[in-house]
């Protein structure tokens, strides 16, 4: 793995000038993922924050060949590109190795793009799929998605007098991707550059479909102070809401273990969308969330043979 110094010397392939919000996690994710790959890359991207903010014609932040076609089809679009490459390579028209990366937000991956993702994973295309999960439809105005955490306030799951925000648990897509039997699945965050770079480097060496889901703080939708992006992503790990782990050929491995597990309220209090959970009358809801996080964390530790 390159040192941060070496990484900083590499040419950035997601360049400034884009119009992502100050403090947006997604731009950091794009830049780190591309920095971690020192081969030619072709990327596809679903409709969403990254697409609208990075490619306002005639400008583009992408210094790799890049395509956007629709919201739900980043995985099937990159499938077609990889298939074209395979036939050209087989025919001896090209020799160069190219890395294929599909990007999608949580809406374009967990929800509307899930069918395309599942199909591409089942077919086993040699593709790395990166989901930047900011836990709601942020680009269209903070509507809830299947990845929105329970009791979070969004514009379509607002906190009201009788309903305390989103009433369902978030989908655990990493586990669903593991169940596809793909060779590599992992979680990451922008706040631990070495974790993300390491995982991307590892993934692209593996043949087949690889899935990495990166929790991507959204200062507008969560909302939080823009300077807290990195810290807030690390706190999601420290509270065990977003454990850092990988599953390589079916074997689970915790890639970072918090020294001391912090209560989830620590994460909640930095974000407006959970403000109501910290009110005295909602202690029960907070306890419910904490209990479930504990249960999931223990489950994961068992899978990783940590306990």
């Amino acid at each position: 793995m390159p040192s941060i110094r070496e990484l900083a010397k590499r040419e950035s392939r997601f360049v400034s000038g884009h119009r992502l919000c100050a403090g947006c996690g997604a731009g950091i994710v794009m830049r780190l993922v591309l920095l971690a790959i020192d081969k030619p890359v072709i990327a596809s991207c679903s409709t969403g924050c990254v697409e609208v903010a990075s490619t306002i014609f005639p400008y583009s932040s992408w210094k790799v060949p890049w395509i956007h076609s629709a919201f739900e089809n980043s995985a099937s679009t990159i499938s077609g590109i990889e298939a074209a490459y395979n036939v050209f390579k087989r025919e001896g028209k090209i020799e160069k190795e190219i890395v294929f990366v599909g990007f999608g937000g949580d809406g374009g991956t967990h929800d509307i793009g899930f069918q395309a993702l599942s199909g591409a994973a089942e077919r086993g295309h040699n593709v790395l799929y990166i989901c930047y999960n900011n836990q709601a439809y942020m680009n269209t105005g903070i509507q809830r998605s299947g990845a929105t955490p329970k009791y979070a306030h969004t514009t379509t799951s607002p906190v009201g007098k009788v309903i305390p925000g989103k009433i369902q648990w978030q989908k655990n897509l990493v586990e669903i991707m593991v169940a596809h039997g793909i060779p590599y699945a992992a979680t990451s965050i922008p706040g631990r550059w070495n974790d993300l770079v390491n995982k991307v480097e590892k993934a692209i060496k593996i043949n087949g479909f690889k899935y990495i889901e990166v929790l991507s703080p959204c200062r507008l939708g969560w909302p939080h102070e823009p300077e807290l992006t990195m810290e807030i992503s690390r706190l999601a790990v420290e509270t065990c809401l977003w454990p850092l782990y990988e599953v390589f050929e079916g074997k689970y491995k915790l890639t970072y273990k918090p020294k001391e597990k912090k209560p989830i309220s620590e994460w909640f209090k930095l974000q407006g969308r959970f403000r109501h959970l910290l009110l005295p009358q909602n202690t029960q809801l907070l306890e419910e969330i904490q209990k479930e996080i504990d249960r999931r964390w223990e489950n994961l530790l068992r899978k990783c043979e940590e306990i």
Partner: protein
Amino acid sequence: MGIKVAKTGNEAFAEGMRQINPDVVAAYPITPQTEIVQIFSQFVADGLVKTEFIQVESEHSAMSACIGASAAGARAMTGTSSQGLAYMWEMLYIASGLRLPIIMAVVNRALSSPINIHCDHSDTFGARDSGWIQIYSENVQETYDNLIQGVRIAEHPDVRLPCMIMTDGFILSHCLETMEMLTDQEVQEFIGKPPERENLIKSAIEGNPITIGALDLQDYYFEHKRQQAEGMKNALKVIPLIGKEFGEKFGRYYSFVENYMIEDADIGIVVIGSTAGTGKEVVDNLRKKGIKAGLLKIRVLRPLPVEEIRDSLKNLKVVGIMDRVEGMNAFCGPLYSEIATCLYDLEKKPILTDFVYGLGGRDVKIEDIETIFNDLLKILEKGKKEFTLKYIGVRE
């Protein structure tokens, strides 16, 4: 030269695809599925094509994968029908907007609901404004010939638009007809290598990154759509050139429309697809009786060949449009609207009336078309029409 063979429409499509030997095919068997892709799968399994065949999980992904492949520089094809085409809708517009010369074999079948697997044209008529070139076939031979010409039309540098080739569900797709198949070499020579265009793989290899599918706001979207419209306009020039070249090489000439006894006709019908065959039979019978009847077959609906349609119909007195689609506009079928649009600016124009027929595979017989001509004769006698739309062959 080619050899005479007996093929169904599905087989003709699949054989044509084998001879085109595309780089990528992505397809899905939605209900109703077409046999085209399963025949082609066998060609892949037997190593008869170089194609990367992607067995996608939906028609939406079929078109998405074709878009990815085509944007990567591949010659990409798919086949579908009815609901599958409906499920692709969003991607149809993206394929044409990105100017990707994807070729799609379509078996025309009714749309749900009610669910039905038989022929009508409601599926592709709904897609007529999606920016795809649309070519319809009367028989199995045309199905095959149109597919091969479609590649050249779509890929022409002045056009650069996707192209769908149609055949009638069951009537042609499942019926064995004698046709002349070209040799593999003849097809390869005719289609040639795809003209070079910017693409993702070329861009990756040359280290010259391109961005495809950028956000295009008020300041550029309109210009790009205007360019796309120009591509469709250019198809008006390219289609007859390719049809002529095909004719010179293989003896079967093609253009936008086929005029059948229309030059001196007083009354005539306008049809699309296999019904043209039945219609020609009726015209022959009427001619024997001394009635000046004719038929106009629309081969190309997009681009709309306005000049050719005007030329064909301008001297007729009464014209019946046969619509194998219900337009659901409480007035007329969509082909009627198209033809009426073509004729509106003429000073002298025929009386037009519409006949909706054959929905959901309802058989259209010689007697049905005779009924239509009888109505046209009555209008001719009276000099005016008493209805704009009549349903043929329905129980009411």
